[in-house]
């Protein structure tokens, strides 16, 4: 068998990738909610991956059986970046409920830092703000492209920041300025994670949120380095899991896969 699957069951989206001879042949992204288990099954089916050897990763990685093994998102992400952006030295991933900065080399993890116990600096923070501002995620780029100064959002806590944004709106501040402030806030948290491991160029960013150019721009400003976005940034972790699956099936050495 020469096809292998990787299944990334995230808190927001479930991603599946199939590779053949080290090349990606198919990927699928589905919402994880309301039923993560079902989302996993559907993703595999839509990807034509039923019956293929699969390695799972992501928040819900223990949910899907049978599998060849499971790995953490960090390890899978590094493996995926090794394929889609082989020169990258640092990966910044803003996921649905965590964000991480991973130092990588040839598809392997050197060091990493991730947010802890706090939704500030994650996709969830943006989701909440998008709702309060009545600006859907796919309109972020349009709104944030207005040439206005960001309005600082100073609260760290998502709940307090939400009230702060409501307050700013009630003072009739333009949503574009608030949105830019919100992006700044998220990206500055991610940047502080980056300082823990050191931002070594070239830097790539991944995860669902960096599909927005406004997020990427703001991230690059906060990190103080140019960042690039690989194609399908949301699927890199699933691709990495598929690669690890192939490696494992070939009897190659794999990190401890439980």
């Amino acid at each position: 068998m020469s096809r292998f699957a990787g299944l990334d069951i995230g808190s927001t989206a479930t991603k599946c990738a199939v590779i053949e001879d080290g090349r990606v042949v198919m990927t699928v992204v589905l919402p994880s909610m309301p039923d993560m288990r079902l989302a996993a099954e559907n993703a595999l089916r839509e990807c034509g991956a039923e019956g293929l050897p699969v390695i799972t990763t992501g928040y819900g990685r223990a949910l899907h059986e049978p599998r060849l093994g499971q790995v953490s998102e960090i390890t899978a992400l590094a493996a995926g970046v090794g394929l889609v952006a082989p020169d990258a030295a640092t990966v910044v991933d803003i996921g649905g409920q965590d964000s991480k900065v991973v130092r990588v080399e040839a598809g392997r993890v050197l060091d990493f830092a991730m947010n802890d116990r706090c939704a500030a600096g994650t996709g969830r923070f943006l989701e909440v703000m998008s709702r309060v501002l009545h600006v859907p995620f796919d309109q972020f780029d349009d709104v944030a492209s207005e040439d206005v100064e960001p309005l600082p959002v100073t609260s760290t806590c998502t709940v307090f920041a939400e009230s702060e944004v409501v307050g700013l709106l009630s003072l009739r501040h333009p949503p574009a300025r608030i949105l830019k402030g919100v992006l700044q806030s998220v990206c500055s948290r991610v940047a502080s994670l980056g300082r823990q491991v050191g931002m070594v160029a070239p830097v790539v960013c991944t995860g669902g949120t960096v599909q927005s150019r406004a997020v990427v721009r703001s991230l690059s400003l906060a990190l103080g380095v140019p960042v690039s976005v690989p194609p399908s940034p949301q699927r890199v972790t699933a691709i990495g899991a598929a690669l690890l699956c192939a490696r494992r099936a070939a009897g190659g050495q794999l990190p401890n896969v439980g």
Partner: protein
Amino acid sequence: MIKLRANKRLQTTIRNQVLWTRLGSRIGRPVAWVTSGSPVEMVLAAGFIPFYPENHAAICSARGMALGMAEQTEALGYSRDLCSYFRVDVGSQISGNTPLGRLVPPDVVLVSNNICGTVQNWFRVTAERFNVPLLFLDTPFNDAAPTENDVAYVRDQLVHIAAELSRLGIRTVTEKRLGAVVERSRSALGLWAEVLDMAAEHPAPFTSFDAFVHMAPIVSMRGTRRCISYYRQLRDEVKQRASAGVSSVPDERARVVWDNIAIWPAHKQLKKLFENYHVSLVADTYTSAWTIENLDPSDPFSSLARVYTDIILNHGAAHRVKVLSNMIKKFGAGGFVLHSNRSCKRYSLGQFGVKTALTAETGAAGVVIEADMADPRSVSFDNLQQRLVPFFEVLGANG
């Protein structure tokens, strides 16, 4: 996984110690509450029975009783940011709650600031509550080994404390008596060091998860004969395991060292996680704090002064890097875990700098995990796992 036979004996030993404390106090032996970093040899020489509130707090936490006790203390207005051992202990004092049956109140308390400033206030509060004398030992903070001036300064205080304890206790603290206790401490510390050193074997027959538990007697019973006999047996058992090639974790694949106190609320889960990933926790800065080598029974005062000033928490970050880096080399570890302990600021300050320096010096991979030694509200096993699993994978991939 083959369990240590000593696990059973540990329970009996601790139970007997508790019974002895209670019985002793009933037949007129005075009781001294001491910190883990106090020169307990002094109180033993004066005929006191020592009791360790920190140790007691750890036991409460391991038995799942910490939260209720901590909340009682917080209700008095003490901040949740204070050391959880303090909050658990005061909560136990107020409520009289303890897994040990009954607490024996102190006749004196002895505290040293060699481990932190928190204990200084904690023991003052305790002395006031029980209306007993407070003896305080000031040990100068140092980047490296204590200077001769430091030693002389601490020694003077010890002489003064000896006089006070002689007055309050049932025996006079003479050099000879103190020397005999110091000799017993020295034997036990030596045996404990032997036990811990055996984790340098591949695979490790004993890990820090075992050590976190089996350290109780060296903390709270050193200076006694029972302590020596406990560690002699433990040493023999671990030696047997080592020569039989018994591994503490099944099929050991990676070895790491640990900085800071154990995470009691998640102790069992963490132990299991390490086992599942075949990672041996081969050494740590916490249990090895009781492996002091240079105790000298022939000059007990100066020797105690030197040893109790030269304590890991009484030194800065550069020293921590040195200790951990030696440990990584000696125990053949490929990685290190720094537990950033919300309770213990003295232990946790500067760990991100330590991480960078340590990786630069040894090439070992490191991870910082955030938790608390006793307060379950500050411990999330999911979060710990989220950090540790990729870290373990890094070790596997590099190994």
